[in-house]
């Protein structure tokens, strides 16, 4: 009753092509934004902001990045972790060399370095595809990881071999470093993620996104209708790596406040890939669902048994968590192989025809 398009007449072409044609959808998005920008900072404590919301947003951004590549363009990549690393190390170098520049600028600009590296490693994608390409991107993963460890210049020759995040400000407010409050860091992350999500949404609904999807569905056919494959695929790699790079810079500078190369290892790549697949390939909303589920699931599983009165030792709990996560991944795939985004779609359809079955 509440959610249907009846009575909402579209009188302009723009209204017809809108991303959210229904006012109910727009209201919902508005509510989410309101919750993100006003309710959570007011109601939440530091723990919620630090340990839940900031990582969730950072991972969502990385998942959107990978989704643009894997979900929209159909190019599988296992190098996400390394591309995030490029962003983090680029940001580290930039802010060391130019300490007076607004850190917000460097957080975004470091994505450009990641984009350049991503484009370079995207070159083989013209010749190879599918799982072959996935394995080829592993070359990027391992090579870059090796660089992060072996080139001391990247981490400013620090003894520990880790990035040490210095105090940096934007407009006089500390953003990174120990004195930055969780609230500012949360707002920085949220603003960047909101802005970049908006950009990604516009990108995939426009000409570029459509050419990506054409390449995904069948690249030979796409070539025949006049899409140039190399620029299209490379652009997908560049944009995807840009998003991952910014996510990596945020991860280290805003969330962790210092990190070693190990943060960007192959497991990080798989972790982001899980989010994209569980959330739904080719869906920006799905990236958020996936990030929420994959990031929260282990935390929830770890904190649940004590509340339910099941005594589990530390190590045992860890192992059981692994097993349950594995089993749940399989279960999710069996129940809905197209990801959580499809579930949301089904729910929407059910709401539209409610209270009738169809």
């Amino acid at each position, binding site marked *: 009753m509440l959610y249907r398009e009846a009575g909402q007449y579209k009188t302009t072409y723009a209204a017809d092509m809108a991303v959210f044609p229904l006012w109910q959808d727009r209201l919902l998005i508005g509510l989410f934004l309101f919750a993100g920008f006003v309710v959570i900072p007011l109601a939440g404590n530091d723990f919620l902001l630090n340990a839940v919301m900031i990582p969730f947003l950072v991972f969502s951004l990385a998942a959107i990045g990978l989704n643009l590549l894997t979900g929209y363009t159909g190019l*599988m990549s296992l190098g996400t972790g390394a591309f995030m690393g490029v962003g983090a190390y680029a940001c580290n170098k930039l802010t060391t060399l130019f300490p007076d520049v607004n850190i917000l600028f460097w957080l975004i600009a470091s994505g450009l370095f990641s984009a350049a590296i991503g484009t370079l490693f995207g070159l*083989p994608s013209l*010749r*190879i*595809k*599918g*799982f*072959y390409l996935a*394995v*080829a991107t*592993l*070359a990027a993963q*391992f*090579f870059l*990881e*090796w660089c992060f*460890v*072996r080139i001391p210049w990247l981490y400013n020759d620090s003894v520990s071999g880790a990035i040490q995040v210095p105090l940096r400000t934007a407009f006089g407010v500390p953003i990174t470093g120990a004195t930055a409050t969780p609230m500012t860091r949360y707002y920085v992350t949220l603003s960047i993620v909101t802005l970049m999500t908006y950009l990604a949404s516009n990108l995939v609904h426009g000409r570029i996104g459509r050419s990506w999807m054409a390449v995904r569905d*069948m690249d*030979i*056919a796409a070539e*025949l209708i006049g899409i140039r494959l190399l620029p299209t695929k490379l652009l997908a790699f560049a944009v995807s790596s840009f998003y991952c790079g910014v996510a990596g810079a945020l991860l280290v500078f805003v969330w962790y406040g210092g990190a070693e190369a190990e943060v960007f290892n*192959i497991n990080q790549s*798989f972790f982001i*890939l*899980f989010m994209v*697949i*569980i959330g739904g*390939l080719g869906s920006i909303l799905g990236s958020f669902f996936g990030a929420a589920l994959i990031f929260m699931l282990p935390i929830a599983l770890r904190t649940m048994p004590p509340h339910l009165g099941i005594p589990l030792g530390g*190590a*045992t709990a*860890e*192992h*059981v*968590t*692994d*097993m*349950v*996560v*594995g*089993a*749940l*991944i*399989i279960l999710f*795939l*069996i129940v809905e*192989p197209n990801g959580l985004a499809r579930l949301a779609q089904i729910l929407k359809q059910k709401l539209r025809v409610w209270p009738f079955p169809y």
Partner: protein
Amino acid sequence: MMDLLMKILIDPFVQMGTAPDLLVQTLWEGLVAGVLYALIALGFVLIFKASGVFNFAQGIMVVFAALTLVGLHEHGVPAFLALALTIAVMLVLAVVVERVVLRPLVNQSDIALFMATFGLTYFLIGLGELLFGGNPKVMIASELYLPKGAIEIKALGGFISLQKIDIAAAIIASIMVLSLALFFQKTRIGRALRAVADSHKAALSVGISLEQIWVVVWFAAGIVALATGIMWGARSEVSFALQIIALKALPVLILGGFTSIPGAIVGGLIIGVGEKLGELYWGPLVGGGIESWLAYVIALVFLLFRPQGLFGEKIIERI
């Protein structure tokens, strides 16, 4: 600039010429590592051929099989009985995977199936640690009558030492590959397997049971995993770090082609030898540790010229 070129192009070969015993030793080590990579790749290829599933869990299956074997022996089961029981466990695993994972996901996209094997990986990691603990264990090599020690050969102006376990590994791997080849060529089930690999639909239409075939290939991959686990375990130790070597099998796979058993073997040898030679002769130029990515770069270079791998079937795309 000339100096650098000299260091890259000439010096390594001069070193090879002046110390041929070191070269032969390195080649041998590369070949042995290559054989073991090839064994893991073989497990991948078996499953990929028959079901089109890119089985990421092969690496953890290696660990799991080795852990089960050692764990059973620790609980007082005699070595060979433990071996038989481990084989039984791998059979149970194959049946369970087919029932619980593959059957409900039939006809889904490749990426969903790939993802499901990730789920399986996590599950097996958790299960393995829960049952056998996360500590590294010693493989029961002597109980299984695997040889120990080394043979020293005096040749080329130096000593070349061949570990007996490595020789055994090479022999066992060859026997395994030969028997798999015979199994594929000569038996009823083997023929059915090849039919399924060619076309699922055609195989179904002549009355081949896909479910049965899947159990058979996962079981075969389990046996291969067990053999790999024993060999790797005997060379170092049985721990979850072994899982990392599964990632090393991936460049082997793309080098040889996902669908080719000879490809897996040749690819394994190329990667094994290339990696060891590269690390020894060219590694010091960039500070060492290049073993971690060299294999991928070698594979990538091959791929640029043959996108389907050395022995892979030619990819023909139609609109």
